[in-house]
């Protein structure tokens, strides 16, 4: 499998009141096409900072982030925006949406802005509806964002992140604001998407969620302390996988 993301010596330093705070310290890792990677770690360890730095939303202090063969740390703001629009997808913990648009319009918006395909608006709308159907939210297509449940809204966010067929989907605690049932439903959809070939990288606190990923990176104090590869044994139940991951995490001081 080809590398879609290759992170080398990534550092991120914040200066607060003249005090230097090294949030990421020479982080190195890579993600291959079709991978599903979870980033775990205690609060304040730098998980989200890492996610935002590698997705081009934040500017790293040093190091390189090669995405799809290009070092995105060297791109201009406009070039980065194009990369994010056409090649990346994002799911946030809070289900941010444009307030005055319907669910369908929120999903279609990035597609209508992208010049990636020659599709007409009608075709883009059709594709959005297909995605919504797939994630079982087609019934709320014309609803306003405040007329749907949190789970539905997060699935709408997934649809939006998928509308431009991204090469890599980033998710920052995508189930963090959802109840257990909704969390599982959303995770199910993400696993399904990964099964269909979408590469996913997510930050999570939840071992249950992380256990559904193919790999888990454990970050502590700005460093990747360990990497866990979920066994592919089909005989292993979900709870077994979760137990094994928990054991590994406890070994690392989780």
């Amino acid at each position, binding site marked *: 499998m080809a590398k879609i993301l290759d992170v080398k010596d990534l550092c991120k330093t914040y200066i607060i009141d003249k005090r230097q705070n090294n949030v990421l310290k020479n982080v190195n890792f890579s993600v291959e096409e079709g991978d599903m990677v979870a980033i775990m770690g205690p609060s304040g360890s730098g998980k*989200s900072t890492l996610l*935002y730095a590698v997705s*081009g*939303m*934040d500017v790293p202090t040093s190091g390189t982030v090669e995405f799809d063969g290009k070092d995105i740390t060297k791109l201009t*703001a*406009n070039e980065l*925006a*194009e*990369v*994010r*629009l*056409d090649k*990346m*997808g*994002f799911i*946030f913990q*809070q289900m*941010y*949406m*444009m*307030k*005055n*648009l*319907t669910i*369908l*319009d929120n999903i*279609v*918006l*990035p597609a*209508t*802005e*992208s010049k990636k395909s020659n599709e007409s*608006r009608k075709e*883009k*709308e059709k594709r*959005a509806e297909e995605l919504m159907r797939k994630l079982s939210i087609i019934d709320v297509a*014309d609803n*306003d*964002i*405040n*007329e749907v449940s949190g789970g539905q809204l997060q699935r709408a966010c997934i649809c*939006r*992140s998928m509308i431009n067929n991204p090469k890599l989907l980033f998710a*920052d605690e995508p189930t963090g604001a959802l109840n257990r049932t909704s969390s599982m439903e959303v995770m199910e959809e993400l696993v399904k998407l990964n099964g269909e070939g979408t590469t996913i990288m997510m930050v999570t606190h939840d071992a249950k969620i992380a256990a559904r990923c193919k790999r888990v990176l454990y970050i502590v104090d700005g460093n990747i302390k360990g990497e866990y590869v979920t066994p592919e044994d089909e005989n292993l139940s979900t709870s077994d996988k979760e137990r094994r991951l928990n054991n590994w995490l406890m070994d690392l001081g989780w």
Partner: protein
Amino acid sequence: MYFNILKKDLKRKKSMNVILLIFSILAAMFVSSGLSNVITVMNGTEYYLDKAGIGDYIIITQGGDGGITKTLDESDNVNSYKTENCYWGSIDDIKINGKNIVSKNNNVVLQSVSDNGMVFYNMDNSELTKVNTGEVYVTSGFLANNDAKIDDSVEINYHGIDKTFKIKGEIKDALLGSDMMGNIRFLFSDDDYDEYAKNEELDAFSGTIFNIKSDNVTELVNELSNATNVLFSGDRGMIKLCYVMEMIVAMIVLVLSVVLCIVSFVLLKFVISFTISEEVREIGVMKAIGIKNIKIRSLYITKYFMMAVLGGVIGFFLGIPFGNVLIESVSKKMVLGQDYGIIINVIGAIFVIFIMIGFAYRCTSKIKKYTPVDAIRDGQSGERFGKKSKMSLARSNKNNAFFLALNDIASAPKRFITIILSFTICSVFVFGVVLVTDTMKSDRLIGTFGKKSDIYINDSKRVKLEFLSKEGDKMLDDAIAEMENDLSKLGMPGAVSMEVWYKYPLTFNGKTTVETFQQNKRTDVTVYDYIEGSAPLNENEIAITNEIKNMLGIEIGDTVSIDFGNEKKDCIVVAYFQTMNQLGSVIRLHQNAPTSMTYASAMMAFQVDFDSEVSDEIIRERIDKIKDYYDVTNVFNAAEYCDDCMGVADTMGAVAILLLFITCIVVFLVTVLMERSFISDETSQIALLKAIGFKNSFIIKWQVYRFLIVAVISEAIAIILTYPVTKLWCDPIFSMMGAGNVDYLFRPLSLLVIYPGIILLINLISVLVTSLYTNKITSNDVRNIE
């Protein structure tokens, strides 16, 4: 603890708090200065006339007192009267810096400073009590019109007496200083004046101004009906009306002040509601942890109280110079009553403080209604919100940024109505003034002064003061014949005529009054416009104005007796017409009515109607030829003549520009502050769009389109409303001047292109500059959204 919460709030929500503070400053500034101006202007003329000592009835004569002194001495209807002696001169007698002086009225008054029945004021509103020998004071506006300055020399060559004076200042002249009267008064020292007074040859040019106090002006006017040599007579009401042009400007200031007050309150209400809605979530958190409603409410009210007081104080101080700028053009001519002065400004500022606290109290009232959960949800996900989206992006073929802008407006119209309302109110007002100015500068109003002709010659070298005499008829006939001859020689043959005003006693129902009659002996009276009835067809028929109808109770069909001096005639009223001459108090005579220049009180211009029809360009060429031939300056086409008669179009033009300037400032402030509020409110959405790959240029386009759409809607509404709204506020003003029904000139270039264009441009620049702030919001900010 509450103090700490408040301190944190002020620090953390700096942008919104600064916006609120700016709006409170603007509101206090507009309201305090507006209120002060409204009160000043409302009492304006009455206060000024009282202060200057203008009586209940004024008579101005030339060539002797015409028996008026005797009548006044014997009348029971006179409480007291004062007289001023003066000499009537012509603008041709006077040169400044070697050039002939320019004045709307050809006649000037030469007078001593101490021989006064009234008080003159310096430009700083102090009384003028003394003029040194060799010095002169002139009516305000003179220096600007003649491109002169204090200490310039003025040469007066008056019937053989040559004298040079140094101009020491301008005066506010309550009687002759208005635009309507337009006579320049030169005030000398007693010594200088005596040189004229000692010369008996000048007696024919001497005049007297009678300033009479009377409790029964109507009866007094009856008694004075046989007085001769009267150039002007009028009661205090008429003098007041002479300030109608100044009052138009004053009214505009008044309406502007009201407009600014409305705009500030609308905006203030919006910003307070907006900032409180921003804080609903925090209110929910406070409620959730058990803080009582009253404490939460008092916390926010304290914040708004602090803002209101700070804004009120700053606004109060800024309001003083701002108000003075607004009222400057009026205060140049008049002494405005500012007895209440600063107190009114203080009241205005306090009023704004109370209004702000009131708004805050009202807006925080929903704190009570919310449960903690409601409040917390209302902050972002807000289940209370109704359906917003009205349009579909998927089904639209619009550009995305344009769609978002349009959809925002359709989804939250209330928010944008505030802006539309503010822009529309200001624009309607500016456009209205432009409409009036364009009308005044056109020939639309020519019918209210006389007949429309090709050219008007209104120069004192041709329209001579000596025509107003017993020999005047022949002199005028000769002058007209000579002019027709000259025009033929110049290759522009045409008919020359002149409108002349006469003063004759008119008797109706046993009551006699002296009225002004207008006649053009060389123009068929049927060519004029009449608003009711039919034109006089013989010398026994007259047309009257509504003012005469209301004043004397005469109607169409009534018969009045007119004493033409040599004969008395019974005349039937056959029509109503409108005129701005003498503020509408005029009777039109048939061209054959037996008038005589002995009774003439004023002349209008020589009117030239060329034998063949000529284009505007040829008229322009011919005007230049006539100017050269006669060596005169005051030669006009119809539009210029209208402007000359009213003499206020330039002032109105300046007012329109001032208003446009103020409107642009308001548009700029509203746009910048509103846009900044919107950015603050939409930070999360902007960050989200950037996070999912939208470029900054897209965000800017979205923001700019939104304001442009709002501005275009506002301007469109303003353009539609301009004509009816202007008719509403300006028709009563014109009707005070005698023209009750004005057909305003809508110049598409001004009102569809230039003025809306400037406002839109200001809007575009303001929103563009402000929206650049979105550059500071990065995709990474999506992490920091609360």
